[in-house]
């Protein structure tokens, strides 16, 4: 229910004003009634006293002469007045005249000294001599009636004045204050400032405070509308910019992501999702899981890299291989993590698969002998190093290095040309590969020098068997041109890696030494290095 007392200034002010008028009116009515009552009572008393003054001389004569007729005349005259209830005139103790009820019959209240009038009558010829007295009982009811009449008249006039004044004030307040304010309020309520509407100044208030108020409100509205418009324009501009950047972010070929301090994924772009193969569910912006959980299956090193970035406080990077999956090729990614403000980490991911591939190709190329397709000296060094590392990791591991030097190769080169020499080398390489297991390693480390690494082989018998197969393979005749074949030989030095403090260079030197000894002892022979169980 709508209470107009709460919602309407006019109703409220009128109600309050009427209340005030009512209270003030009643209070003043009561006061004026009391005052008028008092005044009227005093007036009545004065009137009665004056009445007695008027008849005093005659009463004096009547008392002086004890003239009953004259005294009765006086009493009758007094009784003409309606406010006189009873009169008694006595002279020297004798009742001269009596009108109205017996004095003694009146109640005590009417005979009170302040109410009943008793006038001592002096002799007309000697003021010192009292010759009688006049007793006058006022008519209480009549006086009361007159008093009430007079007080009512005064009170009603006052009440009427207050009521008229009150209504006047209400009228003024409603006309000059509340109505214009209500009008302004209603217009303000319905105003639509965005289409340029303004409040109209109420008629007659153009240059007063209400006019000023309306003017100020209009100015304020103008100001706010302008600010809002600017804000909106700015917002639109920002939106366009943001969409632009968003598009760049989303369509970049570089993966970009942002982690909060707890490692939670805050945002990432499409490239990032593709690189790390995020499930589609993670594409939404809600409840993104922890980054390390998302990439765990491809990249176990993520927590370590994050920890390093946080610890160093600067950009760190790592190459990550995302393994192949059915239908998806393996990819290499370069991840750069940069700490940004608030403990956040910004990640940039680039696909470096092509780079890695060409790098690997270059590496392989560098470690390969272009003529025979076998690993070259560089490839051999790497392999040797790795095998020694493996042996260090597992003390039971052994392997054997065979140094193979071709016999009579120089002559073929000299007699038949380099092309024939190259052909011999290629054929020998194939023969050596054939002579060993697939898991063994064959490399060409010099012009006519080959090295074989035999994994998990260290017993002399087994080694000798392999050596004989190698020598036999190398000794096969080779057709170098139609109708011409060449045969070469091979001298082999063997050295077994026994673990311990032995280095690869030492092992190589031992094998080399053993090979020279074999060569010195005649071609197609072999020797074991002295350290290799001789």
């Amino acid at each position, binding site marked *: 229910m709508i209470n107009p007392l709460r919602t309407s200034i006019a109703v409220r002010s009128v109600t309050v004003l009427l209340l005030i008028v009512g209270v003030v009116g009643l209070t003043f009515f009561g006061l004026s009634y009391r005052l008028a009552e008092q005044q009227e009572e005093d007036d009545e008393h004065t009137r009665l006293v004056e009445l007695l003054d008027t008849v005093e001389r005659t009463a004096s*004569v009547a008392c002086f*002469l*004890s003239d009953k*007729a004259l005294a009765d005349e006086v009493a009758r005259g007094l009784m003409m007045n309606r406010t006189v209830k009873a009169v008694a005139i006595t002279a020297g103790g004798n009742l001269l005249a009596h009108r109205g009820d017996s004095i003694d019959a009146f109640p005590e209240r009417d005979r009170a000294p302040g109410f009943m009038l008793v006038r001592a009558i002096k002799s007309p010829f000697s003021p010192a001599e009292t010759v009688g007295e006049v007793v006058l009982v006022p008519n209480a009811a009549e006086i009361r009636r007159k008093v009430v009449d007079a007080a009512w008249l005064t009170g009603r006039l006052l009440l009427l004045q207050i009521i008229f004044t009150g209504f006047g004030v209400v009228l003024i307040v409603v006309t000059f204050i509340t109505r214009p304010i209500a009008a302004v309020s209603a217009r303000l309520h319905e105003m639509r400032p965005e289409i340029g509407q303004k409040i109209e100044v109420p008629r007659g208030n153009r240059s007063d405070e209400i006019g000023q108020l309306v003017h100020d409100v209009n100015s304020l509205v103008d100001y706010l509308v302008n600010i809002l418009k600017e804000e909106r324009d700015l917002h639109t501009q920002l939106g366009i910019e943001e969409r632009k950047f968003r598009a760049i972010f989303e369509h970049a070929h570089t993966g970009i992501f942002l982690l909060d301090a707890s490692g939670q994924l805050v945002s990432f772009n499409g490239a990032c999702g593709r690189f790390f193969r995020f499930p589609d569910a993670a594409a939404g912006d809600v409840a993104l899981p922890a980054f390390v959980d998302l990439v765990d299956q491809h990249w176990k090193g993520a927590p370590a890299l994050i920890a390093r970035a946080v610890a160093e406080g600067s950009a760190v990077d790592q190459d990550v291989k995302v393994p192949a999956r059915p239908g998806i090729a393996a990819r290499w990614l370069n991840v750069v993590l940069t700490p940004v403000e608030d403990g956040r980490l910004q990640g940039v991911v680039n696909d470096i698969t092509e780079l890695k591939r060409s790098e690997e190709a270059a590496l392989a190329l560098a470690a390969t002998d272009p003529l025979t397709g076998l690993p070259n000296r560089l490839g051999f060094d790497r392999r040797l190093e790795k095998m020694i590392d493996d042996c260090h990791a597992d003390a039971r591991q052994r392997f054997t290095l065979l140094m193979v030097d071709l016999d009579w190769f120089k002559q073929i080169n000299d007699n038949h040309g380099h092309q024939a020499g190259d052909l011999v080398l290629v054929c020998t390489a194939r023969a050596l590969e054939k002579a060993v297991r697939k898991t063994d390693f064959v490399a060409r480390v010099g012009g006519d020098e080959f090295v074989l690494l035999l994994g998990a082989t260290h017993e002399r018998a087994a080694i000798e068997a392999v050596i004989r197969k190698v020598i036999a393979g190398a000794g096969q005749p080779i057709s170098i041109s139609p109708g011409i074949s060449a045969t070469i030989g091979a001298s082999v030095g063997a050295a077994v890696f026994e673990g311990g403090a032995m280095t690869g260079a030492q092992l190589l030197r031992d094998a080399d030494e053993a090979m020279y000894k074999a060569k010195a002892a005649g071609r197609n022979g072999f020797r074991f290095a002295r350290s290799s169980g001789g």
Partner: protein
Amino acid sequence: MPRLLPAAVACLLMLASARAGAELVVIANPASGIDRLTRDEAINIFMGRYKKLPSGIAALPVDEGVEKADFYRALVGKELPEIQSYWARLVFSGQGSPPRVMDDARQVIETVANNKGAIGYVDRKNVTSRVRIILALPP
């Protein structure tokens, strides 16, 4: 001539003092039974309050036309119109009448001498042996 002026002044002063010094006395019949009368008794009798003399004889007060004003002025301190208004009230109520008025002192003395209850007033110098002074009213 210069000797005449003091004499004339003295003569005038004597006249004035004689007039001002005229002393009124209340007189009564020697057989009235009263030797003296108080001032209040005189007032009560002349203003009609008492109908009898203190001795019990019916009182008959009389006025004297010439001295009347002086007499009431001396007795009750009132002028004649007031006295007349006083009697007018009583006449209206029918309760009494003012004293009869004599023409001169001789007639007053005659009336008092011939009536036992009569009392009147005259200048002291007109008093005869036929009446008795019962109250003197010094001016």
